[in-house]
């Protein structure tokens, strides 16, 4: 009995990058939601909110994760073709306190995913600190297994964000839409960099386009869908250049509605004042201004810890060769 059990595992000769990393955003997959734009201001008379000062907890923690598909697998069992991938993800936090920012709490995961509801019989050991845990996707197309890597990362992010938010004196800013809403002692914000869903109408869009630097939109409420209810608002992080579209330089934030409207509004004011401090300039980061400095640095830090994909691919190739020859 080989390492792969009854599976015949082969390597897709194309580097994983060629098949294109899926642009997966959880928001795009969600069912329809109900939006109430008149929570703070009447929806037909939105004006920018310019907070002067805001009170924030002493510690802000930015949470983010990275993921990577290292190789695609072509697996046969009997006459069935099964798609698979090996992939890695990492999540971590940047803690900003006392005028210092520091990376920490990194968690790295490696998984080997087979589609069509199949699963490898045992972990793939590719050397020190490189053990791929078996996992499975019910889908039988090639896009199923990479999604499992993404979901594993999101789950790890949510877990880390929840752990960090458990401390009442910490504000957690998690990358992407909020995925957990249960009452916790602290506060967690979802920081949405790209808008697959706008939530507001054309009238409000005009207000957003003319939002001055350091201002936010009125708070609105999103309800329903697969997730819990959230308060949300837009923040302008950087000035728009003449070439930029209406929504350039904006970010959307959201918070679980269990905190109550007043808390949400106070936090909205505070982060509107604070977040522009963390904005990189365009020369530093092509994803500026939304890709905040701590998040950009954390991604680099995490990617580095995932290891060199070329080494991983070679080790996998050696392993597969060994198993194929043995069979």
């Amino acid at each position, binding site marked *: 009995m080989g390492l792969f059990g009854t599976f015949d595992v082969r390597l897709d000769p194309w580097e994983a990058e060629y098949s294109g990393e899926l642009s997966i955003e959880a928001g795009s997959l969600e069912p329809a939601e109900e939006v109430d734009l008149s929570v703070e201001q009447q929806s037909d008379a939105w004006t920018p909110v310019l907070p002067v000062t805001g009170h924030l907890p002493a510690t802000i923690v930015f949470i983010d994760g990275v993921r990577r598909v290292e190789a695609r697998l072509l697996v046969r069992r009997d006459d069935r073709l099964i798609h698979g991938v090996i992939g890695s993800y990492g999540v971590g936090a940047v803690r900003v306190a006392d005028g210092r*920012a520091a990376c920490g709490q990194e968690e790295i995961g490696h998984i080997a995913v087979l589609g069509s509801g199949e699963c490898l019989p045992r972990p793939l050991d590719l050397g020190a600190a490189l053990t791929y845990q078996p996992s499975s996707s019910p889908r039988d197309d090639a896009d199923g297994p990479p999604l499992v890597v993404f979901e594993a990362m999101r789950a790890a992010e949510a877990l880390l964000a929840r752990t960090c938010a458990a401390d009442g004196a910490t504000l957690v800013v998690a990358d992407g839409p909020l995925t957990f809403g249960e009452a916790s002692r602290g506060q967690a914000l979802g920081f949405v960099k790209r808008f697959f869903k706008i939530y507001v109408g054309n009238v409000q869009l005009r207000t957003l386009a003319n939002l001055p630097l350091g201002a936010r939109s009125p708070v609105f409420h999103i309800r329903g869908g697969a997730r819990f209810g959230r308060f949300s608002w837009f923040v302008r992080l950087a000035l728009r250049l003449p070439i930029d579209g209406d929504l350039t330089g904006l970010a959307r934030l959201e918070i679980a509605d269990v905190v109550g409207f007043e808390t949400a509004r106070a936090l909205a004011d505070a982060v509107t004042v604070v977040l522009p*401090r963390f904005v990189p300039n365009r020369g530093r980061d092509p994803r500026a201004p939304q890709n905040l400095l701590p998040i950009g640095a954390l991604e680099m830090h995490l990617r580095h810890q995932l290891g060199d994909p070329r080494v991983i691919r070679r080790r996998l190739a050696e392993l597969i060769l060994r198993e194929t020859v043995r069979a």
Partner: protein
Amino acid sequence: MVQLDDLIVVETVTPDGTRVSFYGIVDIVRKKFEGNQFDTDAFRVAAGTLPVEVSYAAHVQVTRVDPEIFVPPAPGDAVAVVRGEAFRRALYFDQMEHTVPIGLTRAGESIFANLEFLDGTRGAHASISGVSGVATKTSYATFLIYSLFHSGALGIDAANAKALIFNVKGEDLLWLDKANVRLRPEDQTEYEALGLPSGPFQSVSFFAPARRGSSTPVPDTGSRQNGVNPYVWTIREFARNRFLRFAFAGAHDVRAQFHFVITRVERELERASREGDETEAAITLSGTRICSFDDLVELFDTPALDAMMAGAPVAGGTLDAFRRRLHAAAEHMGHLVSGDSSARGKQIDWSGQQVTVVDIHTLHSTAQMFVVGVLLKRMMEQKEQQGGAKPLVFVVLDELNKYAPREGWSPIRDVLLDIAERGRSLGVSLLGAQQTASEVERRIVANAAIKVVGRLDAAEADRGEYGFLTTVGRKRAAMLQPGSMIVSQPEIPMAILLRFPFPCWATRKSEVAATVDAHDPFERMG
């Protein structure tokens, strides 16, 4: 935490199980942010918005691979800073049979030199370069002499070994026989660490030029008179030993005919010195009684000089040049040659004490050349007659670029070159110091086994003479503090930065212990 100049060891195991130790010295250290992309990211880090790591890396120059299996150490092998026995191995001290302490590292470890490269066994001579005033060249040379004589390195040879030190600047060296009251307890600890006693030189004699115009020779010194012997040569000694050439040491543009004239005159003088009463200071030359150097100058102004050429085809211009230069020389060194009977037995005798300090700092450059030339020539002659390398003689001479310039001729250069090239076999070791080694006769610098630099001028440090310094070493030499030197020796592939302890002998009157009564009525008789 690893620092600059630390010695470190890395051990690696080859596939066949052999343990290989790599010793090295840290020559570059640097810290940087990891995770930043742009210089301006430093501001973001300071503002607390960008997380980064700080990396601290040290560059190591390998000094020794033991055993000599030249494989690289493996990345990730553990590195340790070495102390004690391992430190000695890192710098090959364990292979040196006879060592002399030459200083301390900043961490307080003793640095040694192999005596065999100073006493002529395998090499000799040291060359010390550095900017005047800050490089502490003379202090270091004196420390080396102190270490040689007081560390026990010379063994039984120490009893007969001699040192001849020329004092060219100030009167720093006129107090070597007195303890330094400013020596602090921590300085004493450093001497202890080096295995040296801390105290004055045990056996020293001082010579200073006889004061000009004084009927009986008295030393021409400022701060110290007691215990300093005046020196002066009699006309007869001057003539017999052919010292005349050294009176022309300052002349740079001399032609072959000029040498011929000097040689001819020297021969006549030597002949005259063998006539008459040999115990007398004065001589009779060409029928004229010569009682002073001025008498000699006057005699040569007459046709007597032409007669001495005995029909050799010497141009009148050459003779005139000879006269002109002799006049100029007499003005500066004439008082060091006397025909008075009181001058007898007043030449410098270095056989009495271990260390002989000859003060020339009050003399004009021409007279300095004369004294140095005369002494070194006599010393070499004596050593030749004795034959063999023992007893050893160490000569300390500063401003070597004046005495043995790379460009131009100097009679002293020939003597110094002779010492540099044959001194090893004759047991003469030259501790030469100069501001710029690039201006000293190449062969003299090249023959020095031990090369030392103190603070160097930045432009000078880039010259080829300092090839033993690494690029970083050259830059560091330009900012060395007094008391720190970089020393290169043949067995250690890398020049080592060291410091030497504060002098335990007095270097000025204020450092002399008050218990030594300057008015001791018996001291003059000693």
